[in-house]
Every structure is written in C-alpha cells, then in structure tokens.
C-alpha cells in the first residue's frame, strides 16, 4: 500500500515542498535519460525566475541551455515543439506558466499530441509531459482557473493533479517515462507552502525518501479512512476536505478522503470500493461546477454503485462564474471549508 507511508519515517526523514520535490524528480530524470529536456518560458534565463514558480531554480547550472530551452512567449510553439520532439524520441517536459495559457495551444495538445498515435495507426509515440499551475490566488479571471476538466474529455491525453510532495515527485517521474502525453496540474498555493497564511496556514512539506521511487499514473490514494462518507478531492480542496474530516470526526462522522491524483485514467476500483463501503459521495474541486471532472465521477458512481448509495451524490465546486479579482469575492466562489462541511452534513439529515 503506497499510501500508507510509515509514520515513524515521516517523523525522522527529510521533508520537501512540492516545488522542491518536483525539481528533484526532474533533475533525476534528466540525469537518468539524455532524451529528457525542459522547454518553456522564463525557465533557464540567468538571473530569471526558474519558471513562474521557481520549480527549475538551479537546474541550468547542472544541465545547461542545451537541455533547458527557453522559448519566446509562444505557447503554441511550446506545445508544438514538445509534441514534435517527443515523436522524434525525445522526452520533453514542457512548462506552461499558468494553466490558463493552455487555451493558447489547444490545437497542439488536442489535435496533435493526443491524436498523432491514433492517426498513424500506432506507429508514433508522443512521450511528453506538460506541467501547468492552477488555482485561484487573487489574480482574477485569466491567471487562476483550474482547467483540468477540459482535458479529461480528450482521448489520448492523461491528466494528473498533484497535491503533495511525495506523490508529485513519484508521478512526475512516471509521467516522464510514459509513452503518452501527460498533463500535470499543480496548485499554485501548494508549491512551497510551509505554513504561509496565504495558503491557509498549511504546512504542506512532506516526507520524500532519498531513494528513487515511482508512483504510478492511474492510482488513487486514500488520505484518510472512514466509514460514513467518501470525499474525492484534489489540490487545495483536498486539504480543506481533510480539515473538514477532522472536524466532523469530533461530531461522530467518519470521512474517507480520496486523492485521485490521476483524473484520466481514473482509479475506479478505489473509488467504487470506498463508495460501496460508505454509501455517500461528495466530490470537491476548484474547477467550475458544470462539466467539471466531478460530473464524470458522479456519473461513474451512479452507473456502477447506485444501489449502494444512501444519499444523493454531491459536488462542491467553484460556482459557474468568472473568477473575481477581489480576494473576498474569490472566497465566495471557490469551495471553502464551510461549504464542504455544510454539504457533507446535509447528507446526514
């Protein structure tokens, strides 16, 4: 059971932030395989940012500009070059500064990267990774969206959401080695969180072993076991759900919290087993409600586990609105601890 990390180890071993874990995973893969390279905006410039959120800081010193390719502000070319290089046997890790910018390169991702293998009758492979930061952080309408649901609709793309350092590193390494396009969505508030107030005071550093390990694509993790209700959540919604689970335990409601990690292909086995045990399901995501990935999870459970359910399936998502800039308004629309808690309690009336 990968999810059951030894508690004693956690106490004594080193802890990393998600940004540090991703950086370490990227460096390991680049050392292991010469075909792995980085491509994106502001990633390797001397004196620059090391990527919009500092994930690549220091990597240019070791790998140089031949393997850390700084691009113009040309998202179509970032995705297109990654797709083309992948088909030539390279293993690019492409960087999108904000996931919102993926809409600039939908053709390259959806029409090219996702479809080339099929159109060629299985003759080409597209082993590329695209990393993209998501999450509402008072940046308004075009720098805070969680657009991962758009991509689970595309046959040929794998979609991953990482929420802690251990699994972020393990699944990034698996994604680099995967022979298909893999999109990895990371929440901006979780990258370096060591208890900052803006991240809700969360300390998200986690145990990351020094020895090499992989975490597979397509496998969910049970973050907390419980018998009464299943919560499926990602990113910062996952941590808010964990907080709710702690609070509700005092009221006698035991929540089972699942981090799906991979949205496509989804770990249905873990999901169904949990819902069959608890009889209740709440899905929480910061993506907007209508057509969000929660709808797909709800449909899966309705199709396969309907007669195990003791209450309606509920979704807690960002309201169907454009993201406001005002922090006070932002907190109105995203899933908050209060909204998650109220939704769960409504299932026990």
């Amino acid at each position, binding site marked *: 059971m990968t999810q059951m990390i030894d508690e004693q180890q956690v106490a004594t071993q080193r802890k990393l932030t998600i940004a540090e874990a991703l950086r370490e995973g990227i460096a390991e893969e680049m050392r292991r395989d010469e075909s792995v390279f980085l491509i994106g905006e502001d990633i390797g410039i001397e004196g620059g940012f090391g990527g919009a959120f500092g994930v690549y800081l220091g990597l240019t010193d070791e790998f140089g500009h031949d393997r850390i390719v700084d691009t113009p502000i040309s998202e179509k070319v970032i995705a297109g070059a990654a797709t083309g290089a992948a088909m030539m046997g390279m293993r690019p890790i492409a960087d999108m500064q904000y996931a919102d910018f993926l809409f600039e390169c939908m*053709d390259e991702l959806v029409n090219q990267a996702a479809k080339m293998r099929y159109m*060629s009758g*299985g003759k080409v492979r597209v082993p590329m990774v695209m990393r993209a930061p998501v999450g509402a952080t008072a940046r308004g309408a075009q720098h805070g969206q969680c657009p991962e649901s758009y991509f689970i609709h595309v046959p040929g793309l794998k979609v991953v959401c990482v929420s802690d350092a251990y699994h972020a590193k393990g699944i990034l390494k698996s994604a680099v080695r995967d022979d298909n396009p893999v999109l990895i969505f990371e929440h901006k508030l979780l990258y370096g969180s060591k208890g900052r107030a803006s991240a809700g005071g969360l300390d998200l550093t986690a145990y990351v072993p020094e020895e090499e390990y992989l975490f597979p694509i397509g496998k969910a993790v049970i973050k907390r076991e419980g018998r009464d209700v299943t919560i499926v959540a990602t990113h910062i919604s996952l941590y808010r759900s964990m907080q709710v689970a702690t609070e509700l335990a005092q009221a006698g409601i035991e929540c089972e919290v699942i981090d799906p990690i991979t949205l496509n292909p989804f770990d249905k086995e873990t999901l169904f087993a949990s819902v069959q045990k608890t009889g209740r399901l709440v899905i929480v995501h910061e993506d907007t409600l209508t057509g969000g990935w929660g709808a797909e999870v709800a449909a899966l459970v309705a199709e396969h586990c309907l007669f195990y359910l003791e209450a309606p399936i509920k979704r807690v998502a960002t309201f169907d609105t454009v993201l406001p800039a005002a922090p006070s308004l932002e907190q109105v629309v995203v899933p908050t601890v209060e909204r998650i808690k109220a939704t769960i309690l409504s299932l026990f009336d």
Partner: protein
Amino acid sequence: MTTEYFNDIGLEKNLHLYKQLVLLRRFEERVYFQYMQGEIPGTLHQYHGQEAVAVGVCDHLSKTDWITSTHRPHGHALAKGVSPRAAMAELYAKATGCCKAKGGSMHLGDPEVGMLPAIAIVGGGNTIVTGLGLAFKMRRSEQVAVCFFGDGATNEGAFHEGLNFAAVQKMPIVFVCENNLYGASTPYHAVSPITDVADRACAYGVPAQIVDGMDVLAVHQAAQEAIASARGGSGPVLLECKTYRYIGHSRSDARHYRTREEEAAWAAKDPIPRLGNMLIESRQVSQSDLDAIEHEIESVLDDAVEFARNSPEPTPEQAVMDIFA
C-alpha cells in the same frame, strides 16, 4: 538557368524527377476516378498541378529526414516514399493502409519513411516541425525537417510562432510554402496585404526565396541549396513556391471563384510536359521512352488499386486501439 541545371544534374536524375511527377499526377487522377466510382470514402483534397514542389523538394531528403504535410498530402506522401500500395489502401480505408485506415486522406503519412501523419489543421505543422528541428539539433544528427504548408497557413499564428522559434534556435528546417493563390475559395490577395509570402520571412531573419513552383528543376535547385544550408547549421530557410491546384479545394468545389482563363494560363505551365519537352529536346530521350514511363506508372497504379481492393477491412476492435501507447 533551368537548362543549365538540367544539364548539371544529368539524364538519370531528370528521368527520375519526370517519373515522380507522372506518378503523383496519375495517382491523383486514378484516385479521383476510383472515388467517383464510389470505391473511396470521405472527401479528397488533391494535388494536381502542385507536383513539382513535392518532387523537387523530397528528392533531396533521405529516409531519416522528416516532413510534415497538410490536408493535401497525397503528393508529399508519394514523393517522400510512401508506397502507392500503402497510400491507396489507406484511401480505400483498408487495414493494409499506411495508417491502418485510421488516418485516411487528410492524415496520410508513414513514420517508417520519415513522414508524420499529415496535419489537417491549417498551420498545424508549423509549430510541430520545430520539435523535429529541436530534436535533430540536440542530437547533432544532421537530419533535416521540411514543413509543407499553403498560403492560407501564413495567416495563422502558428506560422509566425514556428518561424520565429526555428530562427532563434537556428533549427535545421526548411519551410516550404506552396502558394497556390487560394485558401479554399478565398484569394490570397483578399486576405493578405502583401503579394509574396516570402516577404514575411525577413521579419524573422530567415532567408527566403521565391521559386517557380511549376518547374520541377527550379524547385529542385532551390531546395538543394535550402536543405544544404539548413543541414549545415545555418538555421531555417523559407521557400515560397508559386503554384496552382488544377482542381477544386475538395471534391464538392465547382471553382466559381476563379476563371477558366486563369486555370488555362496555369495549365500552360504544367511541370510534366515542361520537363518532358526538355528531355526530348536534349535528344537523349524519345517520346516512346516517355510513353514507357506512363505505362510503367499505369501498371504501378493498377497494382495499387488491386491491392487496395483486395485488402481486408480493419477489424472492429481497431476502432478503439492505438489511442495510448
């Protein structure tokens, strides 16, 4: 100039180019015929008239060099080395097609001969090709990538992003614009303030040349220099080949947006008799030699059609295979 080049490359090369032109033209004629017979499904975007471009460029490429193509890829595929059998079977939607019947006319291609499945989104190849160039450059492999695209693609953002990135990275890429004057029914001049696509290259510091795309020798000569330059590490080159598609944009196009006189003027520049006449005038080849080439191609196409007709349909489970590796 062309006569000099004709003499320089020798009889064998000229005959080879002639034969390739005939192959591409007769292939399209045969495909059209079989399509009208109801044997080929879907739609077709055909290459009649533009053959000199694919033939003149691809003759300089080896199997390890790569091309990207467009929604009009039949000529590129044959010129790059996809067999007439595999191409025809793909158009017939048979399991023996070069893409196992999953690509079809608009995605014809074969990685085994250095051609990606053709990209039927206008300008789609112009960013993808930079990944090919980047990979070749990183590996110092001396491979070259050629990106074929139409005049219509030059008004897509992808054209500009791709050309700029290729230039700043000094990639071994030749961008070959087949300016056939129309994007579907829209004349290039109606949507572009300049006459020559080549003029856009200077904005990216990319050397460009305008080429008579109806003259296979002119294309061959320009492509030789462009490919050698790109392969040698000098960065990308853009060739604008002025050409014309004799037929409609796709099968249902009655061509009301252009005159029959204009069509006749371009047909008078047809690359096949142009090279054929030079061959005969050189007194090294007789009309019966050229007729023999026609007969040879005829039998190649008979064989391709028979092969396609007799090939099995893809099995139903193929519909959901090859989505992931």
